[in-house]
């Protein structure tokens, strides 16, 4: 297999937008953290470069989700009782009138 025929073409972008990634991941990073994490990610991505440059044979659409290639089993549409109302709210940081309460959500 073509495992070791890496090309010299370097595709890893070192100047990825850490702020954008943090936004997508909904984590409010301090500037200090941003810097450190951007550096860490650079190191890791540098290492995985060899993989991203590989020529592989398998078609992505043929990929099985399950490592043992199991197929999905569909379940009968039958009710199973689960959490009580109290259990569902038992860990709520804030609740009122049986609903979870959060600061206002936009959009």
């Amino acid at each position, binding site marked *: 297999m073509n495992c070791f025929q890496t090309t010299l073409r370097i595709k890893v972008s070192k100047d990825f937008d850490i702020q954008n990634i943090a936004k*997508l991941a909904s984590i409010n990073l301090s500037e200090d953290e941003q810097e450190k994490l951007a550096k860490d990610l650079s190191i890791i991505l540098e290492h995985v470069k060899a993989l991203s440059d590989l020529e592989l044979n398998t078609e992505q659409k043929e990929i099985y989700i399950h490592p043992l290639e199991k197929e999905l089993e569909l379940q*009968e549409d039958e*009710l*199973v009782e689960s959490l009580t*109302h109290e259990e*569902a709210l038992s860990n709520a940081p804030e609740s009122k*009138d049986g*609903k979870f*309460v959060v600061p206002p959500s*936009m959009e």
Partner: protein
Amino acid sequence: MTLQPTIGIETHIELNTNTKMFCRCGVVDTEEPNISLCPTCLGLPGALPVPNKKAIEYITLLALSTGCEITTKGMFHRKNYFYPDLPKNYQISQFDLPVGLNGQLEIVIDESTDFIQIERVHMEEDTGKSTHSGTGRIESATSTALDFNRSGVPLVEIVTKPVITSSKQAVAYIEELRQLSIDLNISEGRLEKGNLRFDANISVAPEDSKELGTKVEIKNMNSLRSLERAIDYEIQRQSKAVHDGVEIIQETRHWDENKEVTSTMRSKEGSADYRYFSDPDLPNMYLSKEFVDQVKSSMPQLPNEQREELINTGLSLKQANILSKSDEWIKSLYFKVHQQTKDSEGSYNWITGELQGQMRKANIERLPEWFSHDYLSEIIDLIKNSKISFTSAKIILSQLLEEDSTPNEIAEQKNLFQENDTEKISEMVLQILEENPEKVFINFYFRLIFL
């Protein structure tokens, strides 16, 4: 330069299965919040999704009924975004291997049909419900309350190709899709309950242009009326912008029912990056030929097939369309009455016109249990044979909605039978003339026939 609008519609249909899409909590319709939950639909740590077989049968049925190709080896994907009513902060959906692809739906506008191309039909799960307190509007809310009863309810998403060209077409499309989902028995189809929700993508471009204009998404249309008005407004807004040389921004706009305008939603710039990837909790979904055949064999009569049947009884396309979108009992009533009277116009008019009108006025939703289709057939026959007038027939019908009787009995009781023998009529006329000469003289100038 004439501008041509291009419209695509995305519809979400809530399936009326017993349980949710990825857990076996009940699908409930209640005001009581957070009473149908489990670790999975509440997004608790350690919970896992398990798919609902009935939901897959229903979506396959819908896909087949619109002539879609069924994807044999499909999969589920995670659509990642953060929002408080989305418990896992990703929605289990389908990305590039949806259940159905490339179908079409026949729609009817007045006396003509058209076909709307369907891009895809895919399976996903619903979110919880947010209520914003304060003024009730998002912009000035002080907090948001969440009810997750709806979280995880099975949703089918149907996306048309951008082939719709007017608000009228859009409305006809939704009406047809709604009726289809009711006839397939996969949804209640009640717009006001949110069983069916839709967004529209609208752009305008010069008639001869090969490219489409900038696409704008319109959300928050809660009825067919708002769908029509929102589309008309947006087409106008975009056309004006083009004529004025103003750039149309690709964005999502919100239809304001009260102000009757679309306005920019306060949202993030640029299109969202959902980072779709195949859900590792759900192995590949293989829909076998046996499965698909079994679903196919359960296919009921579709609205367009029904219309054909109705047209064959003698109705116009428009009339057939209206009937095909009526409640089951009305359709059933028509067929029974038509079978007896062989009078399609009469049956149609009496049922959709007078009967439904009287029921509305009397605030009755269903026919009383004693009311038989025979009564209508009898009424129609009585009129055909000139035994009663239209006015009398209306009176009889109204009476039948109140008491258990028959048209003949009521006509007898209320003395509604009319005389049709011309000899007898002449006799009666002459008699009246004799008894009332003055009246005849005065009225002669004002009436040609006096009865």
